């Protein structure tokens, strides 16, 4: 089998816009699932509402496309009731961090055995480009026409602090690293959180001087800094640039977890 065998072909074509980064993240996730050797019948994909949350509809496993923000609460019920199932959650920054923020921190705290892949495009794409809790300060959206004034959430830091066993962040440019991170998350018992920064040329890029898809991918490539480099700079006492987004593995640990198959 290859990762392509996981797709529900009779549902194609998909709804994603030309140049969307979500497809890359879905491919990376399915590649990681494929590497795990899991059976289609034992795997469940769960999501909330938004562009990212349409992903399970294109995958041939059992899948639960739920209500806005609540995917983790639904997933908690599935996993606790049947720990034999492998449960993977697709979500986005609006779904997870705004309306679903409470469920996010509690799922991390419970350290329930799920793998969550968050496509963070820093915007509400499905509804046409409103500001999200992850829209960078100054960025233009339809609800921040003069630039976002609110500070953004750092989702990965939040997951680490709230108790997740595995946390990593990459981007849709870093395909191999992202795939490996998802696989590490799938392998780790307990709550695994993989944040994938993705380009949204339709709702974000075109309002923020990143009109071309390649501009956005270039932005994701050049505006990140490896956590190891931050560590080295800190040890040397060098100033850490605050305009770069840290990427890499933030935590891998073994706190007591719930819903792990015995």
């Amino acid at each position: 089998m290859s990762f392509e065998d996981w797709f529900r072909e009779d549902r194609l074509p998909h709804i994603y816009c030309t140049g969307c980064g979500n497809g890359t993240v879905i491919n990376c996730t399915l590649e990681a699932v494929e590497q795990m050797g899991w059976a289609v019948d034992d795997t469940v994909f769960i999501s909330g509402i938004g562009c990212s949350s349409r992903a399970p509809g294109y995958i041939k496993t059992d899948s639960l496309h739920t209500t806005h923000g609540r995917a983790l609460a639904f997933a908690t019920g599935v996993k606790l009731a049947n720990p034999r199932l492998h449960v993977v959650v697709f979500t986005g920054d609006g779904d997870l961090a705004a309306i679903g923020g409470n469920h996010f921190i509690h799922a991390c705290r419970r350290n329930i055995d799920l793998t969550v892949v968050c496509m963070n495009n820093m915007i509400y794409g499905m509804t046409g480009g409103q500001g999200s809790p992850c829209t960078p300060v100054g960025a233009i959206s339809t609800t921040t026409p003069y630039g976002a004034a609110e500070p953004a959430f750092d989702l990965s830091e939040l997951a680490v602090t709230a108790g997740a066993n595995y946390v990593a962040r990459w981007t849709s440019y870093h395909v191999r690293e992202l795939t490996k991170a998802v696989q590490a998350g799938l392998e780790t018992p307990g709550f695994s959180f993989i944040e994938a920064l993705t380009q949204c040329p339709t709702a974000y890029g075109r309002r923020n001087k990143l009109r071309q898809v390649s501009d956005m991918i270039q932005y994701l490539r050049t505006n990140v800094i490896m956590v190891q480099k931050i560590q080295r700079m800190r040890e040397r006492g060098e100033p850490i640039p605050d305009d770069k987004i840290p990427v890499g593995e933030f935590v891998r640990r073994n706190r007591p977890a719930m819903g792990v198959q015995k």
Partner: protein
Amino acid sequence: MQGNTACAEGALAAGCRFFGGYPITPSTEIAEHMARRLPKTDGVFVQMEDEIASIAAVIGASWTGARAMTATSGPGFSLMMENIGYAVMTETPCVIVNIQRGGPSTGQPTMGAQGDMLQCRFGSHGDYSTIALSPSSVQEMYDLTAKAFNLADRFRVPVFVMSDEVIGHTRERITIPDRVEIVTRRPLEKGTLPFRGGDDGVPGFPEFGMGHGVHVTGLTHDERGYPEATDPHVHAALVQRLVSKVESARHDIADYEVVNPDAETVFVTYGPPTRSVKQVMHDQPDEGVGHLHLRIVWPFPERLLRLFTNAKTFIVPEMNMGQVAREVERHTDLPVISVPKLGGELHTPGELRTLLEARP
């Protein structure tokens, strides 16, 4: 046994294996009892972060084939409304117990009420129909909670046990049967579409992990389960099926008690006011006074009103401002006297007797 304990025990007897809940007065004893009992019966108890998460976890658990329930009261019930609609749309069997208290808002946390009867019927957005049971004693709390699981599985709907603080906190002697009747959901046959209704409008259930590869979505979907949110015919057919699979069974599933069917004055009750009426009829037996006691309120079995062929007046005492009295009015040309009572106290037999003495 306390009413809330009987509710939990009835659920366990029916094979409930999953409880997701959040503490709220006056329902909390149900969660506490499940927290003690479920881990010892191969079940799962989880205290979620709020009622939205509680009903979500229950729906998730149900897709793995488990009989699943939650229990709450007014404010938590309000929070659950969106996901109750999701359970309706995705045809997820589950049981939601509402130990009603005085509302609106925080209202009277420790006092009984029946103020959520219309909310359970219409509270989530869009057109739909579900099933609501209403116990009037601790025995009925046990029996009807167990029955709720059968109805949920048979019709693949969220089923409400619409009890209240009065019954939830009443202690009475009850008879626990050796075993309760269990009718589980019909599994989806391989090769059939997961959202095509059978003869009764209910599709077979494609349990997760059994190789069905089912896609479950709250979006309007076709019979394959695939989103089809802009075709007017697909939406109309789906919603009509969701409503009619419940409404067309309303007389088949009706659960009631009829006393003095030849009477001219007929009490119609559900839940605690049933007790007041029974007391009136016990104290002063009168063949001119009839009683229709409904154990299932929704879908409303309107044909039962016509069992009282000599009826001249229906009297509907409720611990709200006349929520089900309106439904009775809708189905009869006879005068319907609504007897609302707010504040948490039950109608006294004396109050109801005064009403009878005043009749023409």
